[in-house]
């Protein structure tokens, strides 16, 4: 079974995304570091079933905490065919360095701009097409807690798998 790894900084909504994709329940809270263990579930996207892996938050590809080491090991050793990099969209400047590190490593990344509703509330606009062109990877906007953008995300995953896996 092909694997999808959900990665990103702490407290950006990785576990909610995991719950949305798999229909199971991983504990979700509003503080960094809720997930301390790797969680696995299954998700059907299009006609294919995937193993979805929820990882503890990582700030950088160069690990300092035990959880970051665990998350990196998943990426290095399990060779997921899709890396969903979830970011808190209002903090693009802080979150993109990790995306750049994934791209440096040649990983197959889909960038998920999560919590996009808070970006709108702050009066910020993000030009997604421009960002896709800059990075040359798919970029999707979501609000994981309401499910907004999930259909588009699944569509992009399907497309991505067809092209690269």
């Amino acid at each position, binding site marked *: 079974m092909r694997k999808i790894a959900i990665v990103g900084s702490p407290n950006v909504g990785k576990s909610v995304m995991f719950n949305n994709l798999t229909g199971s329940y991983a504990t979700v809270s509003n*503080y960094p570091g809720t997930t301390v263990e790797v969680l696995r579930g299954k998700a059907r996207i299009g006609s294919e079933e995937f193993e979805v892996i929820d990882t503890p938050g990582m700030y950088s590809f*160069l690990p300092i*905490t035990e959880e970051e080491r665990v998350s990196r090991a998943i*990426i290095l050793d399990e060779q997921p065919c899709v890396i969903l990099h979830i970011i808190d969209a209002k903090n693009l400047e802080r979150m993109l360095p990790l995306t750049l590190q994934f791209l440096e490593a040649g990983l197959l990344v889909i960038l998920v701009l999560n919590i996009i509703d808070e970006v709108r509330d702050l009066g910020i606009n993000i030009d997604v097409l421009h960002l896709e062109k800059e990075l040359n990877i798919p970029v999707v906007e979501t609000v994981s807690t309401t499910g907004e953008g999930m259909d588009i995300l699944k569509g992009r995953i399907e497309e991505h798998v067809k092209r690269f*896996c």
Partner: protein
Amino acid sequence: MLKDFAKRIGYDDPLEIYLSRIESLLLSDYKITKRAIAILLLQEDNEMLDRIKDKEKERAEEILKVIQEAKAHYSHPLSYIISLRRQKETNRISQAVMSFKKAGKVSFSERLSKIMMNPLTGGPILLAVLYYGLYKFVGTFGAGVLVDFLEDKVFGNYVNPFVTNLVSAAIPLKIIQDLLAGEYGVITLGVRYAFAIILPIVATFFFAFAIVEDTGYLPRLAMLVDQLFKKIGLSGRAVIPLVLGFGCDTMATMVTRTLPTKRERIIATLLLALAIPCSAQMGVILALLEGRPLGLIIWLGVIFLVFLIAGYLASKIMPGELPTFYMEIPPLRLPQFSNIFRKTASRLNWYFWEILPLFLFASVLIWLGQITGIFNFLVKILEYPIGWIGLPPQAAIAFLFGFFRRDYGAAGLYDLKKAGLLSGNQLIISCITITLFLPCIAQLLMNVKERGLRMGIAISIFILFFSFSIGYAVNLILTLLNLQL
């Protein structure tokens, strides 16, 4: 399946040269690009270093030499240089794609956040959260209204008489009858406790905790208490497992994994086992001290003092680096009720599958201990320390049960109180001692699982002596001051 056409940033000249020199020395397959490996190596990633030593053998020496050369070239650590370059690129991209339509005004949640983090207003807010969340909702509603209903009405009137009748009709053997439906029977006590007392208390606690968690209050609390926590060898981050401990110490011990250093994890585990009463235990203690506000204050004061003293001593004794505190403060958010219900349900689910079997197992052990006489023997031994702290010998059995299940212990004391065997002083001393006394069997097992056998046992032995010493000290002070409460 490496993707080569995606965006890739360039570093400045000397760094690029070092990178390509390292890349040309990496001949094995790493599943990620050699460039990424080289970048990690330049940043002194020890895990990667071990990997290349393993895979590149003799070339590893050469690679190490290049790394040394690169490091000597710059006056800052290379991880800093590399991060700066990435941040520069990130800033360029962000500025290109982000536009600000209007200046955001200070929102209500932002103002609330400030009030929560201000030490002057944050204190009263904490007290309000504790009073309404813990005392009113969990204590009065969960441990009061719900427990009364389930225990007296459902179990007292229906389940217990039904089970007792059924068992005595169906099973002739007295011993088996006792196991299932006796004073400490698996069903009449084990299941009754689980469903009529623990379930409502723990469920209301988890529910309240979930609300507090999802608003984002906890990181703000962590920020407020950090300086105090530094004195006991922890950082503010430890507030999350410690608060969860008021619900279930066993679960909280598992959550200590989020603490960054081993030293902090051990201190937090010790404090959870010693000075944080779980909700089940607290429910019974509140009932024990009902109508004795002074007793409640002394109990609270002593437990809080012990928490600080034990933490302070532990932080002095334990070797290791001092904790640093850094934590993102997420925006305050309105909790989603669906998530709160799911989270409460998922935690209760965990609780019942992990803890309940142990509780039933404990009931069986108690039953076995009683019919074999081992318990009587242990009770006789325990009567000595019980005597030293000024309690009647009958309290020994409550303490023994307290080890198997904290709430049993407190419940045993409740029975003594009802029988009029405890004076006011004795009541307070026993409440203090049993709160501090050994963790329940589930927590002991979790301590061993998370901290290792030696540390788990060491913590238990320390607590055994410490709890009785405190009981002794409180008794002594009350006697010397000639106080009758």
